[in-house]
């Protein structure tokens, strides 16, 4: 039963993530955190971090991670197969059509309309990650003991390095992590 659920969830993630890269993130969040509760918001944020740090597409990373967490290695295999299945069918079909007609205009125009929606959804998933980073109880509640000002500082510094210094994203993330680790180590001494 759990395998079927994993399969159906990741089938949807594979079938509806248009635009590559971060486009899969909001779908993964919807299925894995909101609908099925397989991961908490915090673990999801960690998963995005790990996916960013390792090679490979985020959807495949998520399929393996969630599959393993929920149902071991067979779960990972089922979720990954489900995740690439729509691609295999759709792309192969399109490649066949293309070799016959050599025209992708309709598809590309449709995709142009989808892109703004995809940006909006990535923004939504990004908000969830920020909320998970900034607020102790993972909800948008502005109380002094709930807001982590240190995290907001890391965020601001990271944004500055990315935008103004064009720093490597992986490097920026590691830097934020190391700062927090040193802070924790210093406090516990």
């Amino acid at each position, binding site marked *: 039963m759990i395998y079927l659920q994993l399969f159906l969830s990741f089938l949807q993630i594979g079938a*509806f*993530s*248009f*635009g*590559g890269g971060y486009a899969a993130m909001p779908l993964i969040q*919807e299925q894995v955190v909101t609908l099925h509760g397989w991961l908490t918001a915090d673990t999801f944020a*960690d998963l995005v*971090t790990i996916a*960013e740090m390792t*090679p490979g*597409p*985020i*959807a*495949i990373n998520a399929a393996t*991670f969630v599959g*393993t*967490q929920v149902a071991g290695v067979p779960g990972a295999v089922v979720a990954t197969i489900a*995740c*690439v299945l*729509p*691609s295999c069918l759709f*792309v*192969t079909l*399109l*490649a066949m059509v293309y070799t016959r007609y050599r025209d992708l*205009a309709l598809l590309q125009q*449709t995709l*142009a*309309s*989808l*892109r*703004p*929606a995809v*940006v909006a*959804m*990535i*923004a*939504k998933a*990004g908000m969830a*990650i*920020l909320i998970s*980073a*900034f607020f102790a109880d993972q909800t948008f509640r502005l109380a002094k003991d709930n807001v982590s000002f240190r995290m907001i500082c*890391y*965020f601001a510094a*990271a*944004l500055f390095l*990315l*935008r103004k210094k064009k720093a490597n*994203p*992986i490097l*920026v*993330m*590691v830097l934020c*992590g*190391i700062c*927090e*680790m040193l802070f*924790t*180590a210093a406090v516990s001494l």
Partner: protein
Amino acid sequence: MEQVSKAQILRKLFFSTLYLSAFTFGGGYVIVTLLKNRFVDQYHWIDEEEMLDLVAIAQSSPGAIAVNGAIVVGYKLAGLPGVLLSVLGAVLPPMIILSLISVCYDAFASNPLVGALLGGMRAGVGAVIVSVVYDMGKKIVLEKDWIHIAIMIASFCLCYFCNVNVVFILLAVAAFGVLRAVLEQKKGGRS
């Protein structure tokens, strides 16, 4: 294409996608470029122009671009067996890496120092995503296509404030997009 046996093509396909998937950081667009380097410039198995169209197919289809890129190249070079082997090559490295991480995750994340590392990195990944969204959003606003800007705002409100399932929003926008594209093609055809 030079004389190469089918088995040789399949083997090279598998190991190329395996290698690229294991060592490429930075997402699908980077992998697609590297696929082009290998199969167009190095092996001369696909010509440049056709590769551009194959890349367009990979980018217009649902799913991870790295996987889609592997599929189009695999299909072009060796049909369905090519698709299966190149997908396997593209998927195995992240599967193995994430399985190992997933097994260690519970033990690691409960360690206070590793927990702090991940917690700090969360702020960093948040900044990376904000930066990506800013670039993507800016591009759409600068295009000055008011329908696209309206789609962006409406989609955000629907999924953020009304908690509408993102799949429904995508389906609705896709239907609207097809309609608009068909209407525009008709208009273009008449004038």
